[in-house]
């Protein structure tokens, strides 16, 4: 990429700490966030915007749930899985959450190895992250299938308020789409790492700009965000 991110520019003067430092950065020239690259800044701002999307989705869900006059299906029963003759509540969702949170761990390790220029380990860890993400989406597909066979539809379900199915499919679907997009980009970035694009400064196919190992970290920001959103969906859908 064009700008050299993490290099300091020979400015050795120490910046004031705390709020004064923030004020000093914002009143300085060229960059409001010192030593933050364009790509990283852009990802953070995108995530802020995306937060508003998920926030609106979840608030709409809460509105529907608190204002409904018919009973809301009991999540402990709806999301139970029958294993070995007994219903275990929330078991599938516990495994899904575990898988997704683990993928954040592997992603963080990939970022670390990326900055050490360890191509092999970075790529493997990113592919592992992608595999965990794909597993999550697969389990979600299983969950959807189970609910659909039990008669849950976006427009109604056997147990109560129709909005249960509509909000569930809409919000988990939107989150699942985020995970899927993440998996695709993880594979693309992992391929670039593996091929050494970031070492030789090979121009991107579409953008014709050179990438850097920082892209692994930017990818990681997105991935952790998708994880964090899941924690909220998990809490509001399955634990409420």
């Amino acid at each position, binding site marked *: 990429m064009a700008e050299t991110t993490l290099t300091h520019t020979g400015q050795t003067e120490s910046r004031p700490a705390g709020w004064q430092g923030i004020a000093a950065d914002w009143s300085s020239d060229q960059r409001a966030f010192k030593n933050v690259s364009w790509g990283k800044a852009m990802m953070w701002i995108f995530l802020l915007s995306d937060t508003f999307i998920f926030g609106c989705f979840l608030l709409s869900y809460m509105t529907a749930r608190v204002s409904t006059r018919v009973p809301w299906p009991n999540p402990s029963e709806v999301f139970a899985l029958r294993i070995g003759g007994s219903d275990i509540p929330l078991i599938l969702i516990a495994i899904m959450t575990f898988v997704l949170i683990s993928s954040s761990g592997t992603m963080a390790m990939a970022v670390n190895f990326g900055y050490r220029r360890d191509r092999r380990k970075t790529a493997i860890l990113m592919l592992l992250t992608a595999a965990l993400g794909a597993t999550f989406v697969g389990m979600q597909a299983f969950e959807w299938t189970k609910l659909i066979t039990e008669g849950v539809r*976006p427009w109604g379900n056997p147990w109560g308020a129709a909005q249960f199915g509509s909000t569930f499919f809409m919000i988990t679907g939107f989150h699942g789409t985020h995970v899927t997009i993440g998996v695709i980009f993880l594979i693309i970035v992992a391929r670039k790492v593996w091929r050494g694009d970031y070492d030789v400064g090979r121009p991107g196919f579409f953008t014709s700009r050179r990438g850097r190992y920082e892209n692994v970290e930017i990818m990681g920001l997105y991935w952790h965000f998708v994880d964090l959103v899941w924690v909220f969906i998990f809490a509001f859908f399955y634990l409420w």
Partner: protein
Amino acid sequence: MVDVTPADAVPPAEVAEMELYHPHSWWTKYVFSQDAKVIAIQYSATATAIGLVALVLSWLMRLQLGFPGTFDFITPEAYYQFITMHGMIMVIYLLTALFLGGFGNYLIPLMVGARDMVFPYVNMLSYWIYLLAVLVLVSSFFAPGGPTGAGWTLYPPQAIMTGTPGGQEWGIILMLVSLILFIIGFTMGGLNYVVTVLQGRTRGMTMMRLPLTVWGIFTATVMALLAFPALFVACVMMLLDRVLGTSFFMPAVVEMGEQLQHNGGSPILFQHLFWFFGHPEVYIVALPAFGIVSDLISTHARKNIFGYRMMVWAIVGIGALSFVVWAHHMYVSGMHPYFGFFFATTTLIIAIPTAIKVYNWVLTLWRGDIHLTIPMLFAMAFIVTFVNGGLTGLFLGNVVVDVPLSDTMFVVAHFHMVMGVAPIVVIFGAIYHWYPKVTGRMLNETLGRFHFWVTFLGAYLIFFPMHYIGLMGVPRRYAEMTDVTVMTESAHHLNSFISIMAFIVGFAQIVFLFNLIWSIRHGREAGGNPWRATTLEWQTPQTPPAHGNFGKELPIVYRWAYDYSVPGAKEDFIPQNMPGTFGPSREPA
């Protein structure tokens, strides 16, 4: 006298030179271009084209309102479709796209001293997705059942029911899909504008040296990135209601004696989501106008802007406040009275920063060396129009006054003054101002003055009487008001008068378009800096600026954007990139 500041007083570059994509063919240079200036022109041309459609729709509406019963082809259904498409196109596909996609793309990189937007490829995608959104919108005119006639606010449940044109046909679906595409496309561009302003400025360009144009567009873009998500979510949910039969916004409804499948949804939820977007949207088109008009006034009055810092904080303050006023659009929706109290209070608080801005514009003009150029005429028209529109906003912001005025033509007149005419005259002023930079030639002066006077006076002749018939209680959204007592004989005559004025003003816009095209070849040669302005876009080595904007070396900024008529300086303006200390500058320390 001139004491040249050593160049090393400006901090060194923190970022290496930007890697630009250099086009190899005609296609990548002019069509799939990654140059923000070309993208800006593409955005502007597309927005103007779709805006013309909306202009024609407004003529058709005025034909019906002014001369009811004369034109058989304008059925009540068609009237609703015209009203819906006119509103949606003007607010989103014209104003938002033109201010942010058009002016934002052209001016941000040039004004902050960057070679381009930070991610030109994403910026290019932004335009093409916007174009797709426009095409989807236009396609609804040709779909079975025609475009949606749900009103520009698309309120459920009627938006997706049988009685509404396009409700159970293609119209509403295409509208929602088009909006979703628009938001995706806008986000790609918007991220670019924000990051370019925050992280892509040239040496010496601090945030508090940015021209107010950039502040306005920047703040509006941040707001759009936070407000459009609510519209996105509302569109997705309504699309599901319409296509999959969910009941997010649909309560139990009996239609034609038949119970519909929907049950338990909340139409008010849609209104909250819509207006959480909708109110910031007003300022998304107003803030760029505020910024641009500040620069026009300062440049053409040869005087520094009065209270620069206050202007910046007023922009930021208005932007923040506009997120907590949305329910003043819903006083008659059946909210808790305390909600109305809260939202009326926040709404009236917005008058404070807005008034600060108006005072500062007037104080900038005060004892200035006012050049009555066409941009200046439009800028002054803006101040007057905005004050007028803002004052009726005080009426509508109060719950008890709003309730009787709600859904009357008074509301229509109010928002056309404040977010129709006011931003549009700024757009005109800005086009007359920056056209010489974009094309290298001036727009024709005579045609310009004709355009200004007809538009300005005509707009008042359209919308002042409209306030009056609104106060008489004439409701909006009615295709025909004959044989009813609220509509007196004189109001009918006024309506015909308004319609005739609307045709005349519309005609003036055709003259303006002719001027735009004619002057590309036949306009007077402008030179690099015809207005003798200080900001960086006028200091480019070539006019129009070449790819990369600034030749070999990026400019270094030594001063704010408003050093006009500094005592002791040779000229009455000092470009931002001119080193040296001159007389007493009014730049805030």
